């Protein structure tokens, strides 16, 4: 009796695992289609696909869409009732961004047919900021449910909503970090930081101590990313989720995902790192299978040589491009420096303009 139960359970697990695997392949296909222009690029859809794959296909897409729709309508309603100090000819676009920022970061009282309500802003979740304990902490769906997010989900939501209300917001990278770049007629490019709700200048983004000048010059960081590059980011998110879902995988899926993503965004640092680590993982698995030990010595063996050199090359390129690994502690210190050293790092023009309504 007991035995049959175990067998039954095993079948269940393998079958769900297979489903999830299929789900992941399907997700990668859908995202690739967006890159190939065979389907329309939708960042919202891409994010949902990624999260759904990790959640065994249980993402409540209706609720997700409804909430985005509700936020969109809410943003549009505020848009109608607000005026801005900014009077350049692109003031309507700037107003969209200002209102969107407000919806993300401000508490806003509002009335509807059933009474008075308060719109609760989205805040930063200091628990498990990089999703090490629970990968779902990175998700926009988690942010929508709990109103708490991180430097991944917050800018993603901003970008989704920007698309919904018809304005442009670009994702941009800093070490272990994502933020928003927008531009207006008067100031050119400026930054929106959603973890703390500030408009930092570029000096702050370079101040973490982990941004090598070369990394900026090489566009590893601080580049305003276009839509395809953003989808490439989703593909790497997908592959990282896959690694969390199947820790013992053979590396084929993440490898494929990296190749696809790096094709449109060749200098995407997280993609480069994931590819290097995947090559390493595959090599380790191969050596382990053959009873060997992973050390510098394997370079001497003909059968491993090529892969080893490829791996080494990957890491060297990443290093020389200016990438430096940033520990979590330093990251949090850097995030808080934005509030601690406002004088130095706040873009005053944008901040003052946004205050007025």
């Amino acid at each position, binding site marked *: 009796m007991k035995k049959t139960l175990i067998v039954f359970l095993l079948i269940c697990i393998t079958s769900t695992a297979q489903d999830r695997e299929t789900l992941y392949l399907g997700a990668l296909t859908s995202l690739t289609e967006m890159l190939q222009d065979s389907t329309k690029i939708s960042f919202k859809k891409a994010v949902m696909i990624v999260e759904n794959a990790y959640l065994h296909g249980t993402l409540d897409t209706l609720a997700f869409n409804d909430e985005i729709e509700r936020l969109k309508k809410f943003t549009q309603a505020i848009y109608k009732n607000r005026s801005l100090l900014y009077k350049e000819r692109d003031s309507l676009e700037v107003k969209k961004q200002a209102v969107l920022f407000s919806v993300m970061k401000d508490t806003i009282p509002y009335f509807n047919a059933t009474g008075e309500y308060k719109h609760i802003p989205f805040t930063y979740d200091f628990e498990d900021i990089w999703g090490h304990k629970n990968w779902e902490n990175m998700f926009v769906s988690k942010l929508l449910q709990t109103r708490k997010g991180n430097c991944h989900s917050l800018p993603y939501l901003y970008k989704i909503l920007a698309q919904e209300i018809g304005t442009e917001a670009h994702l941009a990278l800093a070490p272990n970090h994502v933020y928003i770049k927008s531009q207006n007629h008067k100031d*050119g490019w400026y930054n929106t930081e959603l973890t703390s709700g500030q408009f930092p200048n570029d000096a702050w983004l370079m101040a973490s*101590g982990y941004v090598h000048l070369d990394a900026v010059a090489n566009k590893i960081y601080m580049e305003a990313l276009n839509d395809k590059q953003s989808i490439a980011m989703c593909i790497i998110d997908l592959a990282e989720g896959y690694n969390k879902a199947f820790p013992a995988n053979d590396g084929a899926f993440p490898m494929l995902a990296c190749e696809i993503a790096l094709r449109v965004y060749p200098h995407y640092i997280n993609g480069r790192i994931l590819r290097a680590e995947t090559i390493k993982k595959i090599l380790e698995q191969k050596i382990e299978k053959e009873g060997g030990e992973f050390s510098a010595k394997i370079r001497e063996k003909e059968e491993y040589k090529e892969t080893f050199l*490829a791996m080494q090359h990957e890491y060297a390129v990443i290093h020389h491009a200016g990438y430096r690994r940033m520990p979590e502690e330093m990251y949090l210190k850097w995030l808080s420096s934005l509030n601690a050293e406002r004088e130095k790092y706040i873009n005053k023009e944008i901040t003052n303009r946004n205050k007025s309504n």
Partner: protein
Amino acid sequence: MQSMVAQVGLPNIMPKTPQASTFQQYGSQNIMSNSRPNPMYGMSQQQRNKAIMAEVEMRQKQEAEYRKRVQGLLNEAVSHFSTPYSLPSYHNEKGASNYRKAFKRLEEMENKPFSVREAVFTVENAFYEQERDYGEFEKVIQETGNFIKQKMQEFGYNPKSNVAKNLILFQFFSDTLRTKNGLKHLPLKYDFQDIYGKKDWSKMFVTKLLESSTGQCHSLPLLYLMLVEEIEAVAHLSRSPNHTYIKFPDDNGMKWHNVELTSHILTTNALILQNGYIKAEAIQNKLYMHPLSKRELLAHMYTDLVMGYEKKFGSDKFTEEVTQKALQLHPTSITALLNKSNYYTEMVQHVFEQLGINKENARQKLPNHPEALELYRTMVKQYKAIDALGYKKMPDEMYQEWLRNMQQQRNNQEQKEMKKQLNKLTKPISKL
């Protein structure tokens, strides 16, 4: 379109020194081409070759597109624009011929290794109406070079090390040095009066620096580069908003050091960035914080020449010709780009005035003058190109505040001296 333009990087135009090659090697294009197909991904040799071919093709296409975008942007900024209008010419003014001679002299330097000393002197002497003697100037620089070499020997510095050579130069600028045979040299101080040479353009000159032992962010680095030539060191001029400073590579060619000669400190990149007016795009497009090659340095000389001409006479065809030359050598020279947009602005003002066009009637009148309209459009394009490259104007107050901030980085013993200098700052300084 705007966003596309702003992301565009520019071809790497780095100096051809071995030290610089570490930077050159890892430009964003290189990263793309460094990406090799993964040998792990279970394919047959044939499939693999095919995949490689496809990838190479794709990359080539990407690069071609990228080049096209960059070129388009640059063409707009650099293009020579012919217009039936011109500003009143100063061709026959007394002294203008000195500038034409200097321009010719600089052009001769273009295709061979040139001496910074000679180039700078040429520019300055045009302003002084050829009244200065090059032999004398040369002698001062050479003697200074010898003094530095002697001091270097006395200190027992490694005569082959580029870091040692730059260190002694740094000490020459910031410390009091005495040689055993009784020669003494005092630090070269920052001159807080008229820092942009508004009242007196010769304030910007190395000649003035040598005569008064005080200079500013324009003359100090140029003297440094002349002395670099004397003692055969390697160092480059580098730009930040409203400012120039020195960058030199270490002996392994792995790391760059920054020397700030106005406040006598070795600066970190973070400190330079703290001025808050350097956008990531400006770094990506190598407007700032990028070591200028010799060619780009010559472009810098052209912009200096043109600015002197403007102070002395004003803008005319000569301004355009020299600026064009500067942009040929250094398409992202922010000074040349700004000079060019100022030139067009002046031209637009002049033409509009002559045609009786003003703000109120522009809408009706301008369409009747297609050439004036075209001129106006060119001016607007010029400003757009500069914005897209990531330029942001740094107000004078902010620049001075940033300079002061750097001064504060010095140690406490120098505080008194610094305060004295700060007191000078309270006196009115003309705005640029």
